[in-house]
């Protein structure tokens, strides 16, 4: 579907108007409606997995997993807790903006959920520009919210048009008090150029990594570590900014990085290739994959299966994987060296997943880093952030209130 500027402008006006009605409702009401909408969407998604798989180019089991793990975070309690956190974060009364325009990316289809639910929770109406590659899920979310409550449903709408449609982009942002953009740095720049004083909430290009310290590598813990890490890698076929591209592994006399890589491949990625199969590989990504795997093989460090591969190589310089379940294992003497290597990623580093024993140390070091603003989370949860997880170094409600 492609919407023209006239339609985009009309929907923006309609959503803006509906926002005034929505803001008269209570936060508790909105939390209730949103949780009902999420439950309804979870049921619908189950029945439309084929279409979602086709639209997202993820396998059906992966679509099911992604929808379930995302939508189950949208509970009334979680939303009320989030609202409480937002209230206590400032001395002043929260003053929601009149309209948020959201530009979605196509790599992680469920990213629309937090991007839409959180503003609506605070009474902020939302106009969503869906990815031209994947407009189905945002439209399903809109319809589910409409079925939960008409006031809520009227305050959200979805448009779709090709990037670069100058008139439609202008119509998308002209009534917005803030614009939230998920996408490449090129997309951010293009939208930013259309904005004058309207704040931009940027969710640009990013990558994530994982760290496994010695406590996670003992015989008793290794299976669990591998299992969690594999899920983080395989979720969304490693296409998201929270997907670990690189795993720093503390090398010990008992466990070489090559041994770790082989276990990760055979006990983790191979298993998940059966339960959560990878989707089709776009030929363009495949070209990069062939080069990346070939170089790793030339270096003598590749462990591969049909739809995944693990390369072992030194922590620096970083050679980014082409995603789609191709991951690098980098041996390091310890956390200090891993963090030193991460410096090269700078502000593009979004998240560091770590084993539970290492999390406090990783958090402390990241907090004191002048160059890194990544969040920390436990391995196994990198792709399932809670509703209140920060985004790009900010609270999830960042930009939704007038200052």
């Amino acid at each position, binding site marked *: 579907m492609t919407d023209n500027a006239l339609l985009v402008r009309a929907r923006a006006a309609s959503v803006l108007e509906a926002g005034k009605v929505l803001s008269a409702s209570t936060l508790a009401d909105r939390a209730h409606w949103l949780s009902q909408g999420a439950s309804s969407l979870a049921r619908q998604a189950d029945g439309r997995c084929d279409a979602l798989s086709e639209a997202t180019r993820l396998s059906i089991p992966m679509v099911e997993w992604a929808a379930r793990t995302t939508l189950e975070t949208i509970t009334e309690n979680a939303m009320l807790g989030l609202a409480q956190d937002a209230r206590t974060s400032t001395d002043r009364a929260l003053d929601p903006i009149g309209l948020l325009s959201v530009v979605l990316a196509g790599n992680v289809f469920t990213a629309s959920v937090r991007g839409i639910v959180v503003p609506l929770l605070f009474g902020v109406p939302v106009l969503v520009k869906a990815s031209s590659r994947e407009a189905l899920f945002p439209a399903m979310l809109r319809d589910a919210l409409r079925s939960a409550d008409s006031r809520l449903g009227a305050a959200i709408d979805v448009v779709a048009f090709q990037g670069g449609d100058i008139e439609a982009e202008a119509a998308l942002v002209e009534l917005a008090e803030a614009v939230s953009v998920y996408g490449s740095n090129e997309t951010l720049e293009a939208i930013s150029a259309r904005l004058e004083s309207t704040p931009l909430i940027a969710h640009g290009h990013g990558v994530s990594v994982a760290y496994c310290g010695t406590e996670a590598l003992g015989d008793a813990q290794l299976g669990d570590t591998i299992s969690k890490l594999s899920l983080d890698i395989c979720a969304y076929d490693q296409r998201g900014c929270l997907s670990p591209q690189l795993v720093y592994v503390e090398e010990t006399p008992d466990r070489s990085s090559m041994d770790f890589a082989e276990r990760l491949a055979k006990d983790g990625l191979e298993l998940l290739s059966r339960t959560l199969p990878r989707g089709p*590989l776009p*030929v*363009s*990504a*495949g*070209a*990069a*994959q*062939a*080069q990346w*795997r*070939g*170089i790793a*093989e*030339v*270096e*003598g460090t590749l462990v591969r299966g*049909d*739809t995944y591969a693990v390369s072992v190589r030194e922590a620096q310089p970083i050679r980014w994987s*082409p995603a789609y379940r191709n991951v690098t294992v980098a041996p390091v003497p310890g956390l200090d060296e891993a963090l030193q290597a991460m410096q090269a990623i700078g502000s593009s580093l979004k998240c560091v997943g770590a084993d539970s024993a290492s999390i406090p140390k990783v958090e402390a070091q990241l907090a004191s880093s002048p160059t890194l603003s990544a969040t920390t989370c436990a391995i196994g949860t990198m792709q399932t952030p809670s509703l209140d997880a920060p985004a790009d170094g900010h609270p999830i409600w960042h930009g939704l209130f007038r200052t």
Partner: protein
Amino acid sequence: MTTRTELKARIEAQIAGFEAGQQVDAASRDELIEDLAAWQASRIPEYGRLQRHGAWPPALPTDVFRFRRIAAHPEADDLRVFRSSGTTSSERSVHVYRDLGLYDFAARVAARHMLFPDVDRMRLVMLAPHEDEARDSSLEYMLARFAEWFGTECTWVWRDGALDIELLMEQLRNAEASGDPVAVLGTSFAFVHAEDGLGDRRFELPPGSRVMQTGGYKGRSREVDREVLLEAIQGRYGVAAQRIINEFGATELSSQMYDTTLREHIDGSAGLRRLWVPPWVRATPVDPDTLRPVEGESVGILRIDDTANLDSVCCIQTTDLARRLDGGIVVLGRAPGATPRGCSLAADQALGPP
């Protein structure tokens, strides 16, 4: 035990056979590729580590040429080093030669067959730097050999690091006045810059004239769609579309592929524009996961097994997307996100920032 001398003789025999008008048997080419790959794997450790996928020898990714010296001979025996264009050393592929005999032989026979099948020699205008200004460019090396093999006279309109628009106009006007056909050869970038520099001036090059363009854009300057550039060149130089052909080459390869249109036009046949693959080369779109040939005309990533790559690696995995068509290959461009490479950048760098 196969020796280099034996392998070289077999490669030369294939090219010479084709030059003599003999049918080159695909099975004997494939057997040569097998033997060549086995010999190279035993001498080049990086290649020897690659695993075979399917029936064919493994193909070495082009990116490896950016990180490792790929050669079956010691560095002391390097006769010539070609580098792809790029701004840093890690972006530049390096292909070393101990012997340019096969390169020359393959380049001459292919160009004679596809670019100059109807004339012995003709006037050449090169929209590229002279070999002396770009000693490490395989394209400039090839064009310099073309000047020797196919040129009555040759003018290089890239001089002292700049496109000499006045000289280009003079050459084109001279060709118009003399009525002698001319071949204008250069990079796609160079043709774009000529478009910008020539303004409203149009030319009607004499019948028999032709244009060869090569290389991509690598995201460093304005890009012009292939069809748009083709149309622009037609209008600018007054040369029919069939006589404007693309050459496909790469630093990592020793052989070139050419659009079929000129040859088919001269032969009186007409087919869709596609690349002709020399019979000593095997060009195959492969599935990126399995690295095995794709079915029919499906799009895959282009693998090129170039037997003229004797002293490096014959089987090369590129990042170009391609499909088969009527016995030839259609290259659809580089995969998005793939490492930029190619021959055009040297010319663009010479021009300075766009």
